[in-house]
């Protein structure tokens, strides 16, 4: 595939890999002196987030195994999602002709619920956990699993929380991209924790290349309102999380996810979403303590899907100025 002219026969040819990496961009204004922090702009992927990688890998795997495709006519995809995986899966399903059912928690911003429908998904909304349940699954996983089990002829569930393809995707693409883009000089990686496909895949790849690479996860304070990511206390739903692969976990007040996202847009020209805001805040605090020679931050998606959340959390914004 020749990416130089950026001429494509099909949008799926634009999915990122080592030959066609998502860009990394250096931050120049908000970074403490003596450190270099690079943002990996995952919103440049075809369907707007880091989850394009996992979604594409999971669908192709289901097709290879005959779980989706001509051998299962009429069968579609059901998936619990905070929105991004759902958007990627829905777009892919639409091109392939598969029905798509996205099961989302009620907390997900309206923008994502509408976008999912624009792309062709049927959306079911589940009330958020009423009060923390010990180790039990979150409502979206339960409902999606119920559909996949009770109506197996109609739905297959990739299950991003347990699917190794979610890790593999980052082992095959994100890791090698960063290694090549930094010419092997990467010293720190900053990520968030959602399904943990990103952190696990990246850490496995980069630590195999250089055991000195520090993998730092940034988590929102408990009771947060940041879609797509989790506090460690909420992580038992993910079967992909391996604490041994994470060197440090920083907790940041979740409101900063939103205010720092606005700061990135205003000073660095980066239209980063709230999980990226949180990651940057974690990276900046790390750099204030000890210089970060070459830090790469995974900026999972952009802020366009979060206008309603930004209104709620960023002082001074008004809906009708």
């Amino acid at each position, binding site marked *: 595939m020749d990416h130089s002219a950026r001429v494509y026969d099909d949008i799926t040819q634009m999915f990122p890999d080592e030959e066609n990496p998502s860009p990394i961009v250096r931050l120049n204004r908000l970074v403490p002196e003596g450190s270099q922090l690079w943002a990996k702009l995952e919103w440049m992927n075809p369907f707007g987030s880091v989850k394009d990688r996992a979604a594409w890998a999971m669908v192709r795997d289901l097709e290879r195994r005959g779980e989706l495709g001509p051998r299962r006519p009429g069968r579609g995809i059901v998936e619990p999602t905070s929105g991004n995986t759902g958007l990627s899966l829905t777009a892919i399903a639409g091109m392939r002709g598969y029905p798509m059912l996205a099961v989302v928690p*009620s*907390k997900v911003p309206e923008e994502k619920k509408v976008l999912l429908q624009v792309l062709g998904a049927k959306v*079911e909304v*589940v*009330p*958020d956990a*009423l*009060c*923390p*349940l*010990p*180790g*039990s*699954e979150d*409502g979206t996983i*339960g*409902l999606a*699993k*119920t*559909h996949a*089990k*009770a*109506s197996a002829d109609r739905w297959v569930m990739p299950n991003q929380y347990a699917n190794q393809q979610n890790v593999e995707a980052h082992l095959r693409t994100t890791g090698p991209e960063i290694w090549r883009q930094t010419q092997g000089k990467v010293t720190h990686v900053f990520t968030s924790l959602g399904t943990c496909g990103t952190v696990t895949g990246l850490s496995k790849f980069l630590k195999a290349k250089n055991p000195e690479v520090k993998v730092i996860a940034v988590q929102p304070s408990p*009771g947060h309102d940041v879609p797509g990511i989790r506090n460690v206390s909420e992580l*038992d739903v993910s079967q992909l999380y391996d604490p041994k692969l994470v060197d440090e976990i920083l907790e940041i007040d979740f409101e900063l996810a939103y205010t720092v996202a606005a700061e990135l847009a205003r000073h660095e020209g980066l239209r980063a979403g709230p999980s990226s805001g949180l990651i940057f805040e974690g990276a900046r605090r790390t750099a204030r303590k000890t210089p970060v020679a070459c830090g790469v931050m995974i900026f999972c998606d952009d802020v366009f899907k979060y206008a309603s959340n930004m209104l709620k959390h960023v002082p001074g914004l008004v809906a009708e100025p």
Partner: protein
Amino acid sequence: MADYANPEVLVSTDWLRQNLKTPNVRVVEIDVDPKLYAAGHIPGAVGWDWTTQLNDQVKRDIISKEDFEKLNSEAGIKNTDTIIIYGDSSNWFAAFGFWLYKLYGHKDIRLLNGGRAKWLNEEGAPLTTEVPKFERSQYKVSSVDGSLRAKVSEVLAASEKKAPLVDVRSPDEFTGKIIAPPGMTETAQRGGHVPGATSIPWATAVTNENTFKSADELRAIYLDQKRLEPSKATIAYCRIGERSSHTWFVLKYLLGFKDVKNYDGSWTEYGNLIGVPIEKGG
């Protein structure tokens, strides 16, 4: 290892799998989120919506004896049936349903240990979208067991004489930092707890698999740590009476407390009353 005081009120997922076709065993699903039943349920199970089918639709109250008879008769449930109840959120509303059945005198009612989530995650545990049809029965409530239900006057009296009251809500609801968990529509004018109540969040009683902790573990928590006494009259409450049904079940059937009541009015009644004492903080 000691067993539960009344082990017969719990069935395992294995037991249910083997008894799905046993005559006179009936399965009832009651969820916090009624969408779940429609998406898929245990074959043969009927599904009830707690908001519209277990509560009176005019006044705030549980359904009347007559409505309870009608609900069961329409589902073809007989007084002699063994009923297995299960649901989501570690059986919150299933426990509420269990309490309702006991209140209306059903003889053989049991909870599916682990509830819906445990069943869902088990290989070979079937789910279906088919809604079963049963011939109408003549279900009759012959006695109502009022000793299982606390009215607000009893709660006030218990608080006054420092009798055991168990607040099973989250710590932030107990202290009054919040009035209800985020997103809940039923709430109250005031936050805090009934003076003298002990905070033991309902989830203390369950494992990561949603099943109940062992008798020894439960004893260590409720008796040794929290100093409740099986011989003392005890009242459990929460916000609307569903989480407290869960703890009521633990105290009465798993730990064998002689006299436990569920205060189903709970904080949405108490926290709206004028002039009653409220304690805030931990």
